[in-house]
C-alpha cells in the first residue's frame, strides 16, 4: 500500500467523507478515489456502485482485477426536538445502525430520564452547529413544531447538503415554513429537498408509528442518495 494512499484515506475517513481505496491486483498499486471524483469506464461504474451500496469487493475492469475497499462514514441522525416521537425514533434508529443525537434547548423536554443512552444537547441548534456542523452523511429530522428551534437547523441542513432533511407538520404548517425559509433566502430547489409532511405514508397515527415512517424515509434517502452533487470533483 502506498503511504500516500493510507494518509489520504485516513484523512478522508476522519473528515467523515466517503472514499474508496482501489488496489490493482496485477501490479499491486493503489489509489484513493473520493466521492465526487470522476473515474471513467467499467472501473468508474464499479466505484460508483460501491459508494452507493457501501460494499467492498473484487471487480474485473478492462482485463485487470481490482479490489475496491469502500469506506463510508457511519450515517448519523440528528433529531431536533426531545419529543414523544423522538423517544421512539431514537432506539429504532440506533438499532438500524445510525449514530443518534438530540438537540432541544427546552430543558423540560431534554432530560436524561426521557432519553437514556443518547447524546442530548439542551442548547439552541445554531449554537451547537457553530461548534459541530452537520455533514452530508447526517440526516436531520426537525420535530419540535417550533420555528424558532426547527428553522435554524433546517437552514443549516439544507445548506450543508445533508442526505435527509425532514420536518414535522401539516401541509398548512409546511406552507408557512416555506414562506419563512424563502424569506430567509433559500432557493426553491433547496426547499424542495425537505420531506414534509415527514415520513413515508403508511397511515402512521401513534408517535411510534410516525417514528417508523420517518426512519423508513431516512433509510430510503441514504440508500438512494445522489452522488457527486455536493462535492467538487478533484483528481484522484
Amino acid at each position: 500500500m502506498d503511504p500516500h494512499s493510507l494518509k489520504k484515506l485516513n484523512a478522508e475517513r476522519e473528515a467523515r467523507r466517503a472514499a474508496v481505496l482501489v488496489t490493482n491486483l496485477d501490479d499491486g498499486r493503489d489509489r484513493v478515489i473520493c466521492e465526487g471524483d470522476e473515474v471513467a469506464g467499467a472501473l468508474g461504474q464499479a466505484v460508483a456502485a460501491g459508494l452507493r451500496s457501501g460494499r467492498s469487493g473484487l471487480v474485473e475492469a478492462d482485463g485487470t482485477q481490482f479490489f475496491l475497499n469502500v469506506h463510508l462514514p457511519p450515517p448519523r441522525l440528528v433529531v431536533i426536538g426531545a419529543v414523544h416521537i423522538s423517544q421512539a425514533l431514537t432506539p429504532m434508529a440506533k438499532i438500524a445502525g445510525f449514530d443518534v443525537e438530540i438537540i432541544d434547548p427546552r430543558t423540560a423536554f431534554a432530560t436524561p430520564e426521557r432519553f437514556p443512552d443518547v447524546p442530548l444537547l439542551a442548547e439552541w441548534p445554531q449554537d451547537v452547529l457553530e461548534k459541530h456542523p452537520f455533514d452530508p452523511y447526517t440526516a436531520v429530522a426537525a420535530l419540535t413544531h417550533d420555528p424558532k428551534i426547527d428553522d435554524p437547523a433546517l437552514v443549516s441542513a439544507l445548506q450543508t447538503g445533508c442526505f435527509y432533511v425532514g420536518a414535522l407538520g401539516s401541509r398548512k404548517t409546511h406552507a408557512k415554513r416555506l414562506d419563512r425559509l424563502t424569506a430567509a433566502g433559500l432557493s426553491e430547489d433547496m426547499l424542495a429537498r425537505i420531506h414534509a409532511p415527514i415520513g413515508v405514508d403508511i397511515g402512521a397515527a401513534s408517535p411510534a408509528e410516525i417514528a417508523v415512517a420517518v426512519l423508513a424515509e431516512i433509510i430510503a434517502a441514504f440508500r438512494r442518495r445522489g452522488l457527486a452533487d455536493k462535492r467538487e470533483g478533484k483528481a484522484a
Partner: protein
Amino acid sequence: MMHVANLDENRDPLLIAEAWMKDGKDVAVATVMETWGSAPRPVGSHLVIDTEGNFEGSVSGGCVEGAVVAEAMDVLDSGKATMLEFGVADETAWEVGLSCGGRIKVYVERLG
C-alpha cells in the same frame, strides 16, 4: 457533533498503521478480499502487522491471524504482496482453518 470521535485511534487498524509508519516502523497490511459462507469478518477488514509481530485489527475471529502474521514477516522482508486463502476444507498449503466452515481470501502487502 459533540461527542464525535470519528475514528478510534486506539483500535482503528489503518490509523494504527499510519502511526506506526510515522514511528519509522515497517508495516504490513492484510485485507479480507473475498469471503464464502459464514466468514466472521466482512470483506474490507484489516489486520496490520509490524516487524516485531505486533498486530492490530482482525481478518477472522482469531482463527487465522497467527498464520497471517507469520506470512506478513515474509512480505515485509521481500516487499512482495501475496494472496492467502483459508478454509476449513482447504487441504492445500495451510494447516490452519476456519472452524466456522467459511472460507476467506486475505491479501497481504507491505506499506510503502
